[in-house]
């Protein structure tokens, strides 16, 4: 217990003094998580909506496929991108492997099925409600998508927050395509995994606390958003 108390004190110290290594890791994490979440949302929010309102051949298959992707172990996704981006791979010439860019791409790909599934849920419920109205106004399915997305913007904001939380929590894929290189691709999650295996607790503890605080505030923000929109829009 003394060891732990000591580590706690050191962790506090690191955070309070704004230790350079700590700051670098946190800042990198925020950048890559925001970037990957943004890309994932840009692609998956409309895709989820399209699947919700659409009626095209293969829709069922697409839904099953998305659900399957959701259950895919993250290390496998990491491996796929690793093979694609490695020097021997098809996209190796881009030289992205072991750079933050690789992390962003892999994370975005991991977050997309989650965002698509959640956005599909929300849009589907809204579609059931407004379908008749929109049809009577002569709005085609395709045209309805942006309308619904805008109408649901608050709910979709919670989806984006969920995606961001997922991105910030990712470790397996990030380890593989990023390589956990100090100062370059070491993010909070990989640093924690590394530091604890080295037996070096204070940095891991400090990072862990920050990561925890981040994820909890994202969840808190999503909760507050839901409450606010429920009160406002009923």
């Amino acid at each position: 217990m003394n060891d732990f108390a000591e580590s706690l004190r050191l962790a506090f110290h690191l955070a309070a003094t704004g230790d350079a290594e700590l700051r670098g890791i946190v800042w990198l994490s925020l950048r890559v998580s925001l970037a990957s979440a943004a890309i994932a949302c840009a692609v998956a929010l409309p895709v989820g909506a399209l699947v919700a309102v659409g009626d095209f051949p293969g829709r069922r298959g697409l839904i099953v496929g998305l659900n399957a992707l959701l259950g895919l172990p993250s290390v496998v996704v990491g491996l796929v991108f690793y093979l694609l981006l490695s020097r021997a791979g098809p996209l190796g010439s881009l030289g992205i492997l072991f750079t933050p860019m690789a992390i962003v791409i892999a994370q975005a790909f991991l977050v997309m099925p989650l965002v698509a599934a959640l956005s599909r849920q929300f849009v589907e419920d809204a579609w059931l409600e407004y379908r008749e109205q929109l049809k009577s106004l002569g709005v085609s399915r395709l045209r309805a998508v942006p309308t619904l997305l805008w109408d649901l913007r608050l709910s979709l904001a919670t989806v984006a927050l969920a995606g961001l939380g997922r991105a910030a929590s990712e470790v397996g894929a990030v380890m593989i395509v990023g390589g956990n290189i100090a100062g370059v691709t070491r993010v909070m999650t990989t640093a924690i995994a590394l530091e604890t295996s080295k037996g070096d607790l204070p940095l891991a503890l400090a990072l862990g606390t920050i990561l925890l605080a981040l994820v909890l505030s994202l969840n808190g923000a999503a909760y507050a958003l839901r409450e606010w929109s429920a009160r406002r829009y009923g």
Partner: protein
Amino acid sequence: MPTADELRVVALSLKVACWGVGASLPLAIATAFVLARKRFPGKTLFDAVVHLPLVLPPVVVGFALLVLFGRQGPLGRLLEPLGLVFSFRWTGAALAAAIMGFPLMVRAIRLAIDAVDTRLESAARTLGAARARVFFTITLPLAWPGVVTGALLAFARALGEFGATITFVSNIPGETQTLPLAIYTFTQVPGGDEQALRLSVLSVLLSLAALALSERLTRRAGGARDA
């Protein structure tokens, strides 16, 4: 064709996942029952705590496990004389897998218990069955498809578990190097890409099989329920 080493990794992963899910299943059933049927102060908080592993980053969960169950940790020191050591052992990997999959199990089982008509339970009581008997002869059998689904979902999750495992019990070949950890390790080794790929295929196949089975059970239960 998988090599002996690869098969050992798969065997370890299966052992970890089976023990993790199996040992936590009774607790998951009890938790789901309490959440489905009982009202008590602090229920919302309890529900939130049960679902924490879904929300928290796996590395944070792994780190918490390390602090609590590590050799120096309060619970670790308590359990060591009982012969339960988690630190750097496959039991720790199983514990991590169990915790990460617990909310999935509870959610599926709770849904199934919610769907059991409480009036059937009342009918059983008027016939002379005490509460415990009602649970084991009426509630649980009727909720069983949900139990199996929950276990399969948690199993699939356990097979893919990485962050909590590597943070809690590290990456010890033969002891804690489950399938995902092995895949990662092979990418760090020159020329290990092919093996990593093979393991990935195995991992995906196992996960998909578990998920497909749970899908089929859910659909079948939906039809049989209208009795």
